[in-house]
């Protein structure tokens, strides 16, 4: 009876608030978090008719965007025009839309702003959930997630309803502010609470801790009112246009770099925040001191006679903390807390490249939380990237849990060149998730036929068969990559020799360009683990780099297509040239064999005639040679 009632609720597309207590409900999949990643996964689960629910703490989807960014502006680009009508290509430059089959759910229809208001995202996510009828239980605060007796996951909400599922997907994102402990941290205001009205900072001296987009966002909005702004962080500013990493400082927020370098009192400097001490002076101002952790007694104070030029010796009116977010494991009970990463990945739970927790089989991570896999490397921490990793996760689950093989297309390898050309010129998933997701082409039947898998997590290449359900031995991998020595803070990415146009120098391309790996047999798990720092995949049997292109149109007949054809020809070990009928005829009369192209088309009555308007020109040009 109870189940039936919930079933009804599900059909309506929106779970009712659990008013009663002690009700129990079970699904195959519970997704925790109704933000972009949770909804994205919900769409795929619904589309494949899976038994799922999304648990959302708040009353709306994507409630994070109801508050953040504090100064309202999203920094994911909303590029409405590319000059192309190719919907897939255009997704390469639309960073806000989630994937769906409904063209009205294109974010570009929601705002004309290149950097839209956060509220647009709230509207968009609401529509996305409603139009697609995704099953979300709002106002449901999950806690005490644990393993139950059936080795499934059990949990409860604030009304003591209990839920269980076979597979748990954590898509909560990062929402807990990172608040390091130091002496005087109580005087520091957090990004989440600091006033947004610039008038509140009139004539004040402000120190901002942090050097990310939030820090600069705050600085950008208030620096017209302040005396000065100083920014402090442990490491140097990393500009996203220098690193190709969208999580680094975006140009749209970096006005303070201007005022610093143009000697307008503002400044940026590097210092360890953990060693900071904030002291309140008698007149209510905040002064900085630094303690060396090794010598607790020795500290650097503004009045230190030995360091009378200490940069931060003037006191501040306010100190604002913009130090980012971290993963909050509070919803788990002590037995099911996923371990956290190390070093710079410490804010993420540890997962494998199949997005599954390394600690608890059946527990997965989707969206921003899965960014440990490509932190500071690719776009998996951002909507335009994780919409594809979520799809990859769903495809992995489909095979693993329901024996539905990874979606694929098959064909003759003689058609492969055109298929690859089309993919590299439009595919968005491998473009956004460069280095991470790539197309895997399985060669079959003595390399005569192929099976094409799109957007496969490349770090699972050694397991392609067990992860997708497609038997694989010989494979070609298509991946988009930046040059090894190009990006990085401090590199001059505008240097004169930054680009090459020579196909023979494809491997020296710096900008994003297609790379093709051919393996006669799949690399082993060992190969995958022992990569050199500059390698993305183990050494293949044959490698091809397609030279970078300023327009990202890799369609030049001689520079792009021809070298790729030769690469494929050498894999297939046959001449893949195309011929007109009269040429096939002549060869048929003279040779004991015909080229494969002639055999396949001409001999099957599908020869290609040379149109008179085409031939006229050829003759003329021949004479010019």
């Amino acid at each position: 009876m109870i189940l039936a009632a919930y079933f009804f609720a599900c059909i309506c597309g929106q779970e009712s608030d659990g008013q009663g207590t002690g009700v129990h409900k079970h699904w195959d999949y519970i997704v925790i978090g109704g933000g972009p990643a949770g909804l994205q996964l919900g769409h795929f689960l619904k589309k494949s008719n899976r038994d799922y629910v999304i648990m959302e703490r708040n009353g709306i989807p994507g409630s994070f965007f109801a508050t953040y960014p504090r100064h309202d502006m999203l920094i994911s680009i909303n590029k409405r025009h590319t000059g192309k009508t190719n919907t897939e290509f255009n997704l390469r430059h639309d960073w806000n839309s989630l994937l769906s089959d409904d063209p009205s759910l294109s974010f570009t229809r929601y705002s004309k702003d290149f950097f839209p208001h956060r509220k647009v995202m709230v509207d968009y996510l609401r529509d996305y959930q409603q139009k697609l009828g995704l099953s979300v239980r709002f106002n449901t605060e999950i806690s005490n997630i644990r393993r139950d007796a059936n080795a499934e996951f059990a949990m409860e909400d604030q009304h003591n309803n209990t839920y269980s599922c076979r597979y748990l997907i954590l898509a909560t994102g990062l929402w807990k502010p990172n608040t390091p402990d130091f002496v005087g941290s109580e005087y520091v205001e957090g990004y989440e609470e600091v006033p947004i009205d610039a008038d509140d900072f009139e004539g004040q001296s402000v120190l901002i801790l942090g050097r990310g987009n939030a820090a600069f966002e705050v600085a950008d909005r208030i620096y017209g009112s302040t005396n000065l702004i100083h920014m402090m962080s442990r490491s140097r500013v990393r500009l996203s246009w220098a690193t190709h990493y969208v999580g680094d400082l975006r140009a749209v927020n970096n006005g303070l770099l201007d005022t610093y370098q143009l000697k307008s009192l503002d400044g940026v400097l590097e210092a360890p925040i953990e060693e900071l001490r904030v002291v309140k002076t008698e007149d209510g101002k905040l002064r900085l001191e630094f303690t060396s952790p090794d010598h607790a007694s020795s500290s650097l104070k503004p009045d230190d006679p030995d360091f009378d030029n200490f940069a931060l010796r003037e006191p501040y009116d306010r100190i604002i903390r913009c130090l980012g977010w971290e993963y909050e494991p509070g919803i788990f009970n002590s037995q099911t807390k996923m371990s956290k990463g190390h070093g710079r990945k410490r804010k993420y739970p540890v997962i494998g490249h199949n997005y599954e927790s390394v600690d608890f089989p059946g527990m997965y991570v989707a969206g921003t939380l899965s960014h440990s896999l490509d932190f500071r490397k690719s776009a998996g921490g951002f909507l335009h990237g994780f919409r594809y990793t979520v799809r990859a996760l769903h495809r992995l689950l489909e095979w693993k849990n329901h024996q539905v093989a990874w979606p694929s297309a098959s064909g003759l390898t003689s058609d492969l060149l055109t298929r690859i050309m089309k993919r590299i010129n439009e595919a968005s998933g491998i473009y956004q998730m460069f280095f991470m997701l790539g197309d895997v082409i399985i060669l079959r039947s003595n390399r005569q036929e192929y099976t094409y898998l799109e957007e496969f997590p490349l770090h699972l290449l050694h397991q392609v068969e067990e992860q997708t359900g497609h038997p694989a031995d010989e494979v070609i991998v298509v991946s988009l990559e930046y040059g090894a020595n190009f990006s990085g803070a401090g590199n001059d990415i505008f240097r004169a020799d930054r680009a090459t146009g020579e196909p023979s120098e494809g491997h020296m391309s710096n900008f994003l360009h297609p790379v093709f790996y051919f393996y006669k047999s799949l690399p082993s798990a060992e190969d995958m683990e022992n990569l050199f720092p500059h390698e993305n995949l183990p050494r293949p049997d044959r490698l091809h780099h397609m030279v970078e292109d300023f327009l990202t149109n890799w369609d030049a007949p001689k520079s792009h297509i021809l070298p790729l054809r030769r690469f494929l020809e050498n894999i297939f070990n046959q001449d893949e040239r195309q011929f007109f009928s009269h040429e096939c005829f002549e060869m048929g009369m003279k040779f004991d064999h015909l080229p494969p192209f002639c055999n396949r088309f001409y001999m099957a009555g599908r020869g290609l005639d040379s149109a008179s308007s085409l031939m006229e020109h050829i003759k003329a040009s021949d004479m010019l040679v």
Partner: protein
Amino acid sequence: MCLVNIEVLVGLEMLIKVNFELVTDITHLSVFLREFFASSMEMTAYNVKFLTVDCPTYSQEISYCQRKDVETEVFIFKDGEEIIHLGLDTMFDVSSIVSNVLQIVLLREVPIIQKQKQRTLHEQTLAGHSDLIFSYQGAIGTYEHRIFMEVAHAYTWKYRFALTTEASAVNDLPGYIASEDSAIWVIPCSKAKNPTDPEGCKGGGQAIKYKGVMSLFPLANFMKFLDVVPIHDVSVDGLYNPYKANNMNTVYIYYDQQSRTQVMKEAGMILGEYRGHVGILMVDVKLKRLSDFGYLPQWKIPALAVQLDGSDELKPMLEYFNPVQFVGETLNLAKSESASHESGETWTEKPLEEDMDPDDLSNVEIQDDPVAEAVYSSRHSPPDRTHLLTLTRKNYESEINEREFTMVLYFLTFDARSMAFMYSYSEAANALAKLSETDMRWKMPLATMDCYDWTDICDKINVTTYPTVRIYRKGHEPIEYKGLLSTQAVASAVRFGIHPMIMKDVSNVSVVGLFPDVTHSAVSEFREAAKQLHGKVLCGIAFGEVASEMFAAKAADFETSQLPSLVMVKRSDVFQPRLSVPMLTSANAIVKWISQSKMPLLPQLTAENYPYYYQLQKPFLILFTEDISAHPLYKILGDLAQDSDAPEATYSWMSIRKEDHVNQRILQFYLKSQKISESLVFVCFLSGRIFIYPENEGTVDEIKTWMIQALNNAIEFTSTLEFHEWKPRHPGYDFLKMMDEEATRDPDVHDNYDPLDPDSAYEYQPRGDDPDDETRKALQELRDSRLFHQKPKPLRKHPSDSRPEDSQTTWHENPRTEL
């Protein structure tokens, strides 16, 4: 002049400014320095010194270091005076550095001329004295420029040299080709008696163009061979071949008294084109030991043969005709060049499978796919798409659903086959457009859909290969068009699709099923067969009285005598205008009979029907003729084709009229001769053997016997089909290998070479495997030996002596790096 010091200086200020961590920032400069150091090795032989100055350290001592452009310029000094400074961007590799510096070393010896008139004046001053070697260089600083300068350096003692960068200065010279980046001519001014002598060099009338590949070895050889007496008559000059000893190509001309004048003239013509590439050995056939000179008794006089350097084999000209062309083709000095002389009508061996040199990386980007090449070279005259309906997301559904008939071409612009077909497709549309003037049904029946622009639509309807052509008819499921990709075939398919009744215009064959009544059991089978042949053959059906009447009316012609029967009318078949059989019992059998019988009895073999005949797996008997109906064997072959005793074969003919180049080439291949004549050829695909019927006439029995003998291998075959495996023609770029090599050569540019440490430059090793090295050494030796024998000019004082007081000491003792 050559013993004068030339010094090249580059400022290093920029290097010192950067610290070690940011070494990547100066990659471009470190690359330049590597090239600079490499050049310095090569230029020592030319007495040019390369110096670098550590500017930040010695900015006080060396005034140049205070110049603003010291970071971006290379300074060149001669006798202590700066003569020029050049931007680093013009000196990007060894070739550009060496060529630029050599140009300066030889500024006087190799003047740069910009106008034709200047060249003519130059020629006039040389008249009667010296030959002029004149070069056109599209750009300065290239490899071609470099080798020209290297050769000039070695031969200034013998010839005068000059060059131009203006095509207008050379476009009057023989063999000028506008698209060439560089060219070299020998203008024989020394022969002129006076400056205006028309026989001499005025206007370059007698100029000989260098025809070899633009690389050092062949060019140096050319210069060497210019010096060798070009004609050697063995009976006058001695019984030996001087050219073989010189490693030259030899042209043997065998003459007798009658032909002497003629061949001498022709020898002159050959030299007019190929001097420097060949020597001509004149052999009088009166000579006793003719065989010593390669002569074979069966050769008719005059005869000519070419012996390539390094080969013992003589290649004779089979028929003495146009010796200049034969010599050119045999030498095959530059492949692109020989291609330009042929307009497709002369016979070239294996034109379609010319193998590429796998080691030559430049070939990777030379298009060898004829379809891609055709599309690319016609990119400026795109197909006329006026009459093609362009489908987009907006109109796709409505057009497809509402029109009676639409043919849609799904294409990708980067798919060459799609784009080549687009030309035929639009031609068909243009042809059909005329019909729409009177009948609206013909309005734009051909549509296109760009599957890159509308990728989601093509995805949805599962179009995954290109081009895909589908036919949409209102109320029907779409059909995949699987016919020929030709103008004709597309137009026919449209005509048939819109209006089947005009099929007789489209097809030469129609079939009627004649039945006693509608209820006959075979009617449904016939209908099924007709359905399968939809679009290919027009099928009709008749019952009862109508059928009987039709039958009676044509009874005399028919081979069967009863209903039901199948009747086929072949409008264009002279030998077999109609035929019939008793009705067959299954649809498949009907289809099979129709498919087999619809072909003409003695077809013209064309590119279009070859696939059909080939799959019959019978040998081909082909009459190659210019005019089939006038050929004496035409009738005979028709009889043979109908003769049930004749060997199983496809009896056919092919046209060898002037415009049928492909057929001519095929016959040339069978005859193994450039010269073709009407022939009867028996091609046995199974054995790969080809037989030529020895006569022009024959009876049915004679030809039958000959064919049987051929099939039994009882007679000799003329030629065989060539065995060819269609393997990749080039390994392409091996990036793994390239990266490995780069890693070992310079694990990182900065690892073994430190731009901040001038000493590290000493460790630089020049790239080892330059094929030009040996030639270069030989040229330099030549030059040096001449120098020894010429009076050297007095040595000037050391540059430091002539410098102003304030800088002279530092200049000499300065901390420069001498390489």
